[in-house]
């Protein structure tokens, strides 16, 4: 019995869609789970009722709505509500796909850097383009903090600019690494149970209780991380958008 914690991240093409240049565009298991996430969100948001007194499903839909709306208002102000659909889409897409990904034998979309990087770059360019469109050159005042002595200003500006351009990196790697590491740890500990049992017999199955307990604890943690990382991604998006909306701060 061999533990292969990386296997869960494999991209398996289900069928080929076409070619762009010399790239093969395939419908993969990753694509499947992306569309599952979209479908689940659409079901949640559209199939829930419109009752005055909400039922369970409607409550979940409304709580998601209010949760994201409150997050935006508290971090980016009322003007940030322009980006409500974007942030809601990002949050729900990541939250649902992460939660689906915690279920055994499923695929976690956010465990691939290319996906999180694409989303982070989407946010980055939205901030950059909207910031310049709305504030013109004043947008770049975010690189010049107030009250910094003139002789260290160039250094501070350099750091600010560097950190601004590193945002998509930290934004994407944080999510990707959390999902990847969590799933690997989960798989390793779960694998120990089977490995002990198959190699040591009855004693092994008894000894497997310990890694099993750990797996359960890790599973709970992963559920939290799945939600939390989606939330962190969304709230960072809000904070970055706040720069574009109010560059004076």
């Amino acid at each position, binding site marked *: 019995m061999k533990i292969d914690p990386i296997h869960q991240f494999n*991209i398996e093409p289900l069928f080929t869609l076409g070619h*762009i240049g010399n*790239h093969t*565009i395939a419908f993969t298991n990753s694509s499947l789970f992306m569309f599952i996430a*979209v479908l689940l*969100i*659409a079901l949640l948001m*559209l199939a829930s009722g*419109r009752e005055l007194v909400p039922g369970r499903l409607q409550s979940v839909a409304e709580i998601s709505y209010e949760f994201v709306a409150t997050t935006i208002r508290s971090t980016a102000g009322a003007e940030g509500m322009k980006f409500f659909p974007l942030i809601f889409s990002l949050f729900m*897409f990541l939250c649902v796909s992460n939660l689906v990904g915690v279920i055994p034998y499923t695929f976690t979309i956010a465990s691939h850097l290319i996906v999180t990087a694409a989303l982070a770059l989407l946010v980055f360019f939205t901030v950059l383009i909207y910031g310049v469109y709305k504030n013109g050159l004043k947008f770049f005042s975010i690189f010049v903090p107030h009250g910094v002595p003139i002789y260290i200003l160039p250094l501070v500006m350099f750091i600010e600019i560097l950190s601004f351009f590193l945002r998509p990196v930290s934004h994407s790697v944080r999510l990707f690494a959390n999902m990847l590491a969590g799933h690997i740890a989960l798989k390793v500990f779960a694998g120990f149970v089977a490995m002990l049992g198959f190699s040591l017999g009855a004693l092994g199955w008894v000894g497997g209780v310990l890694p099993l307990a750990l797996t359960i604890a890790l599973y709970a943690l992963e559920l939290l991380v799945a939600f939390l990382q989606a939330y962190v991604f969304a709230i960072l998006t809000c904070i970055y958008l706040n720069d574009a909306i109010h560059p004076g701060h």
Partner: protein
Amino acid sequence: MAESHGEAKGQKAGAHTETDGGHHGGAFPPFDSSNFASQLVSLAIAFVALYLIVSRIALPRVGGTIDARQNKIEGDLAEAQKLKDESDAALKAYETELANARANAQAIGNETREKLNAASEAERKALEAKLAAKLADAEKQIATTRTNAMSNVRGIAADAAGAIVQQLAGVTPDANAVNSAVDASLKG
């Protein structure tokens, strides 16, 4: 799994050499650039679809439901407030009405009492006047009677005096002298 991976690699011309999958999966899948294009295309389609669903249908729908509820709650509260104000006003009107009626009743009572008092007073005065008139009449009658009686007494006294004088003196006294003597005696 290794096979499927190799297949995916195979489909791509000039695949990275690091991924000739002999042992499980070859390259670490998240860093396997041969899958990037497929994932990006799927992500673009899925995310744009999600964005359209969310921005065009889902959020207006859920937001509308929440707003409708908020409006309903506010409307109901306003309605309740209005009804409360109305009942307060009605209570106040009732109280004013009651106070008015009470004041009215008091006024009517006072008026009636005064009227009755005045009437009884008038009656009493009339009665008193009548009694006083009767008293005066009676007094006058008494006075007349007394005068009469007095004059009779004088006559009787004069006669008696004349008779006594005649009896004693054997002479008939002068009537005038007797009268004046009686008068003097009566006065005395």
